[in-house]
């Protein structure tokens, strides 16, 4: 899985492309945590190109969200496809990782 990271103002935008399952979870978690370390205001995970997320993948989100909470920056996600969105909703992750329709909405929140 390719992960593209860029800076937009005081936010770090992380874009995982492809599948986020058990095989990809450790590397993705590391990328998320590094983004949290660098972020001034917050991290937005752009899920537009994320086709699959499993419980192992969700754990990468959770660990990074905990790190962001400790640091005092935001950690949110945007542009979720229907399958990925359903996993967030069923697991209750939409309550701990704010979900937005777009990057601009996420950075404006």
């Amino acid at each position, binding site marked *: 899985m390719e992960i593209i990271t860029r800076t937009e103002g005081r936010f770090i935008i992380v874009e995982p492309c492809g599948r986020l399952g058990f095989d990809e979870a450790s590397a993705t978690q590391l990328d998320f945590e590094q983004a949290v370390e660098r972020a001034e205001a917050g991290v937005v995970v752009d899920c537009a190109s994320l086709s*699959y997320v*499993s*419980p*192992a993948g969700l754990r990468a989100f959770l660990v990074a969200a905990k790190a962001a909470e400790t640091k005092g920056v935001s950690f949110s996600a945007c542009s979720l496809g229907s399958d990925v969105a359903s*996993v967030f909703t*069923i*697991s209750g992750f939409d309550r701990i990782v704010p979900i937005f329709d777009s990057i601009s909405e996420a950075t404006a929140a």
Partner: protein
Amino acid sequence: MTESFELLAETNRLGFLQEKLQSWWCEQELPEAQKFPFELVLEELFVNVATHGNQQLGGICTLTISFGCERIDSNCRVSLALEDNAPPFNPLDAEIDLSGDRPAEKPIGGLGIHLTKTLMDNIDYAFLNGCNQITVSKVLWREEIPQAVLGD
């Protein structure tokens, strides 16, 4: 419409397992849009055996995995069955608390079985002949199932 095979419960076999499901799904002409929950549940159940099961066994578990598709009335029920030789473990007995609304309160454990219970219509567990046997199934939406799968 049923395919069964054996494999060792090693995490580096997950890709092979996912390819097996993909090939079988295509052969059955099942709707791609409804594959996601089965991919997720198969990964979860396999990884559980390949991590916790192996740890409890003190070695590498052997898994027998079956994919099944059967006509139910005018619908199609897809099932996944996994049988492993780890010590008895019923995932349905696990207490799950997903109530936290802040990251620090959110438990990491229990997500997988909660998703499995929610995404599937049925889950059955038994410990028979020295093996854990878990079967999950779900009826696919009729309107997206090709007529070839349903018959007449």
